């Protein structure tokens, strides 16, 4: 295992990290697309992609090539600047989100004691991107999708933050490395045992925050055709798509670190445990998508404001009291 902490120069380290992350995001994006389609297929009792490569493993590569090769079309009357800024703005902050995540012992991009805050702050960029995409494409469906995306993302950031705060109260730090360090290898030593409600709320909000079914109202296919990315073609759509999957990886990684002990695991701790836990969470997210109908837009907000925020607040209060008492 290469010790990343041993590389002295911060600039070099950052460049290396970003290259490594680009590869990581790209590969994981391809893998997740394949996984999603296979899971969808098997749940629906069909094989899923099967034609390109053995059992269709190369299908995502073919898809990516197709997306890259497609003509980029901007609709007439669209605000070209905003229209093309949006997908880039949606994708670029993803790199920052990955930097503080500790994938393994000393395997992280930037060591910062405010890692959690960095992730939460930069995750907010996505809202802006969706908003610009919907507004810039001069499409009514896009506009409705953007309006939905903004109100949903803004609403769900609150309970997300509150649950994260509960964990931070317990551990007394916002450094992801330290949070991992404070948890043990075995499941009963993880934060999920002490904070089960926070975990459930965090995970549900994460599903909503990444616009995944059953909370995929900004792109609700049967209502808004495709929502904010209705007008995007080729890699414009591809970047949104990749950003969605990358964000899924981020939220699942954060959930893994906060609640499931990060890279620590029984027997031999290491990055593999991190990947196993992260992919388990991703699988559950996909499982949700292929099982449930879509929640109506106002219900999505109601769930957040009337259930998650009060529950998260109560949980936070309880945590604070217990931390103070013990």
């Amino acid at each position: 295992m290469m010790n990343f902490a041993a590389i002295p120069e911060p600039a070099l380290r950052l460049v290396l990290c970003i290259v490594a992350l680009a590869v990581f995001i790209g590969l994981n994006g391809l893998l997740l697309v394949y996984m999603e389609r296979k899971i969808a297929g098997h749940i629906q009792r069909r094989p899923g992609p099967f034609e390109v490569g053995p059992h269709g493993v190369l299908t995502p590569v073919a898809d990516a090539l197709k997306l890259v090769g497609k003509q980029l079309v901007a609709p007439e009357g669209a605000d070209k600047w905003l229209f093309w800024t949006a997908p880039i703005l949606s994708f670029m902050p993803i790199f920052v989100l990955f930097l503080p995540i500790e994938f393994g012992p000393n395997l992280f991009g930037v060591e910062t004691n405010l890692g959690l805050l960095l992730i939460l702050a930069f995750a907010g960029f996505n809202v802006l991107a969706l908003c610009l995409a919907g507004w810039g494409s001069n499409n009514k469906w896009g506009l409705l999708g953007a309006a939905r995306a903004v109100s949903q993302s803004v609403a769900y950031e609150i309970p997300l933050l509150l649950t994260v705060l509960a964990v931070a109260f317990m551990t007394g730090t916002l450094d992801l490395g330290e949070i991992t360090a404070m948890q043990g290898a075995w499941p009963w030593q993880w934060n999920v045992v002490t904070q089960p409600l926070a975990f459930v709320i965090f995970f549900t909000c994460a599903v909503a925050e990444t616009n995944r079914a059953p909370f995929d109202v900004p792109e609700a296919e049967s209502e808004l055709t495709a929502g904010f990315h209705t007008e995007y073609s080729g890699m414009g759509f591809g970047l949104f798509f990749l950003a969605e999957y990358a964000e899924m990886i981020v939220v699942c990684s954060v959930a893994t670190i906060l609640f499931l002990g990060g890279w620590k695991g029984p027997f031999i701790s290491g990055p593999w445990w991190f990947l196993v836990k992260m992919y388990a969470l991703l699988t559950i997210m996909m499982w949700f998508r292929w099982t449930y109908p879509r929640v109506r837009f106002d219900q999505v907000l109601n769930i957040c404001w009337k259930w998650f925020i009060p529950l998260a607040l109560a949980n936070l209060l309880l945590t604070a009291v217990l931390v103070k008492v013990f």
Partner: protein
Amino acid sequence: MREDLIFSYERENRAVVDDHVSGQGCSVYMDRTRLADAAAMMLEAGYALDDITLLDVSEGIQGQYRFTHWDKQDRVTIRTIAPHDEACFPSIAGVYPGADWHERENMDFYPVNYEDHPNPTPLLLPDDMAEEHPLEKREKDRVSYFDIVPGQKFIECDSDHMLCSCALNLHSAKKDEFPLRCIPELRFKQPDMPANMRLEVEDGDFYSKHFETTYSDDRLVLNMGPQHPSTHGVLRVVLELDGEYVIRAEPVLGYIHRMHEKMGEVKTFHQYLPNMGRVDYLHALAWNHAYCLAVEKLADIEVPRRAELIRVITNELNRLSSHLLWWGAYLLDLGAFTPIMYAFEDRERIMDLLQVITGSRLTYCYFVFGGVTCDVPGDFAERTRSIVHTLRDRLPMFTALVTENLILRKRVEDIGVIDPSMCRRYGATGPVLRGAGVAYDVRMNSPYSVYDELDFEIPVYDGHDAMSRYMVRMDEMAESIKIIEQALDLLDGADDGHIIKKAPNAGFTPPSGEAYAAVEGARGKIGVYVASDGGKKPYRVKLRAPGFSNLSLFAECAQGTLLADAVSILGSLDLVIPEIDR
């Protein structure tokens, strides 16, 4: 003079009962000036409007307004005639809002006008065809009304029928109060209409004609369709939104209009059969059945019992496949992707089964006049039993996966409230009506075929909402399975394998007359009216599509709902656009 005869009928408000002859129940002839009052009376008496048919005969254009009562086994047809040079009827859209679309459709097809029609724009035909009327007959092709309906076939009744007596009272009391304001020269132009109305608009589409007048800055006008994932085909709904709330919703039809009714007039009786598989491709056999029943009634053809049983079995299998597809597609509208695949698994088995006997998988053309085209194979009963058993075993899975799902329940409970009064005014039938708590099913109220020998229930739910309509369809699947099993039991010994007694040959000409047959399709009451002048081809074919009436209430039902709910309501109506556009 025969030509005077029909007007004398009208003057006397004569009522004729001919249920057995043409299946239209009681026909009341009345003067067109009193139509609106008669309609108001019918609504008060609890009648629902089925359809408005026009018949172009040499005396003029006859309007036939068919009404049904849900509790009484009673059908009433109001007949009124307008001379060709003054083809104008009063509109009854003010009383029965469902008549709006029927009248607009008639204005497309015939050179008639409806006075005081709220919105006289083309419905099914494109705007630039407003001067052409496909169903208008040429002078030499017209026959007298009495060539179609020979007078002696009628059993005339006294005027003690409710409507007849009402009409008589009206006649004596208000004779001069309702002069028809129609001026012959202005046949194609409504005098009081604003400038953006029919024929005066040179350019502009539906939006500019309807929505500009009410447009304001805080409204968003949105075209849902003709290509939209949840309009199930090429339906276009123009929505006026305030935020996500629907202020107005106006369906725009005609994108897949194929003029099936005209095709009926240019093809022979036999040649029209394959068309029936293509009107409603999801429950094609019900249309097969309705048309065959109408022609059999017209020509007095007897159907062997075995054929009747086969018809019932295949029809119910087809209803199952239709409901299964609806179930999947509705869930797709609500955002669940997986159920449609599970529904297709069962649907596939049913289609395999239907393919064995009908030869096709979707657009069936299986029934012929007097029976069915081929008998069922030996192992059919066994296979069918095993397939419906499998389906019955899977129904609880449907319930567990979907019906009881919290998210789904929140999407359908108390959404799209359609009450019985609304159904009556718009003429809604089928699961939409039964979901409104009204026990009306053609199979129960006017049984046809061998349905009255079978023991089954008509599921009715009293909730008026999308959930009720959902539950009705789910229960109907279980009932269809019951029907199929009983009919299979009866099939064994029936008629020694005779599936057709005397097949009409290719040049078959039924006697002149008219016939109306209604069957219960998966979407509601399917009605076929056939008029024959004794020639090789039908003189007039009218198709009453249930989806047409069911969709017409969408505008009222969707008002004030959220966009997502409008999608949910649209799905709960179970639309098949080719059937609506015909």
